[in-house]
């Protein structure tokens, strides 16, 4: 039996009929066509699906969409785009060359955003801990850390 819910995503309200066991990630990607959050491990281990829920980073694969009703969801699409202007983290990932295949990037930027939202000038340790819940299998993290430092320096 589908449930009728209202989801607040990137500042917009969406009326949706969803399965009661549908994850927030499934709804974002398959029903709202927001494909920034990725399906990686689908079990809370890789961080590709990271979004913000009420301003805090969370794994959207581990959250039921019905349970997300009433919360403010923000995906990578909601923080900046080529059309509206890139967020400084997005620009810094380009400038630092912190992307290879790109699959982890949206999740890592959302994790880094929570850090920069709360700590203006984070240490390298704080940066590494902030992205500890995200895996990148290409870059070895060095340029990702550089990118986050670069974005932090621009505040």
């Amino acid at each position, binding site marked *: 039996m589908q449930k009728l819910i209202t989801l607040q995503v990137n500042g917009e309200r969406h009326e949706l009929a969803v399965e009661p066991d549908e994850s927030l990630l499934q709804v974002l990607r398959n029903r709202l066509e927001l494909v920034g959050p990725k399906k990686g491990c689908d079990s809370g281990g890789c*961080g590709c699906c990271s979004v913000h829920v009420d301003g805090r980073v969370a794994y959207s*694969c581990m959250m039921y969409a019905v349970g997300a009703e009433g919360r403010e969801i923000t995906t990578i699409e909601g923080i900046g785009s080529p059309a509206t202007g890139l967020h400084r983290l997005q620009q810094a990932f380009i400038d630092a060359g912190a992307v290879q295949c790109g699959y982890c990037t949206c999740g890592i930027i959302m994790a880094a955003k929570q850090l920069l939202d709360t700590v203006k000038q984070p240490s390298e340790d704080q940066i590494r801990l902030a992205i500890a819940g995200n895996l990148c299998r290409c870059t070895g993290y060095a340029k990702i850390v550089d990118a986050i430092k670069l974005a932090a320096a621009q505040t």
Partner: protein
Amino acid sequence: MTLPNLQDYHRPATAEETIALMQQHGDGAMLVAGGTFVHGLEVRGLLEGVTALIDIGRLGLASIRREPGGILLGATTTLADLAAADFVRGEPAFGAVRDALTYPPPQIRNVGTVGGCVAAAAPLYDLPAALLALDGRVQALGAKGARELPLDGFFRGLFESALAPGELITAIAIPAPPARTTSAFLKLETNANDLAILSVAVRLTLDARGAIGTARVVLGGGVGEAYVRAAAAEAALAGRKADAQAFAAAAEAVAGDFEPVADHRGSAAYRRHIAGVYLRRALTTARERLG
């Protein structure tokens, strides 16, 4: 997600409504708070019998209260909110809680709950070991009313606790720690999202002479189906001066306190060795916190 027999996802507004739903669905009822444990079971195909998900996020159980007798942690308090509490950040007595909350990544800390990781009854989780070392108590509510159960004895087996069918956890109560109390937690893991290969939580309360009045040693991770109160290690500490000799004696004694799991993540001999090493380190950290 795949719950083949799921009929509905409920978001009750009161504990009474929650209990009625649990009664109605019996074994088919599964409570959801942060959802991370539920999801872990779901992806392993362990929830095929679930007919109703009951989300307790709207019960108003997310609160941290300091009372004369101690601290009351509402069941749906997130790990992140607990980590931000003044007493967790600053007081040596709550050092084990502080340590345990540094291990999960932000994505888990922001949604995982205090009550959820206790209700899971899986010794692989970090925070319950710390709460157990602090003599925490579970406040439960069911159709027959409210009751309080000590965490010591609460964990009966893997995914099995002393909760009766149809009961939910409303809070975890931690008694006010006596003066000169300190604690620490240490975990062996392979990455930031890993479950404990082995974990150790310790709490020491020193008496007026500086000797160890009360000692608690709790083991988690691959130590069996439930957390272990390490009685021999505690006995090796009680009454002694809190120094390196006492800590070494406890580290030696702890090997006899449990039957380690042996698997691809570590042999029994390795886990037994690590228990001693980590216990000595955790005790040293706890002692240093008292200055």
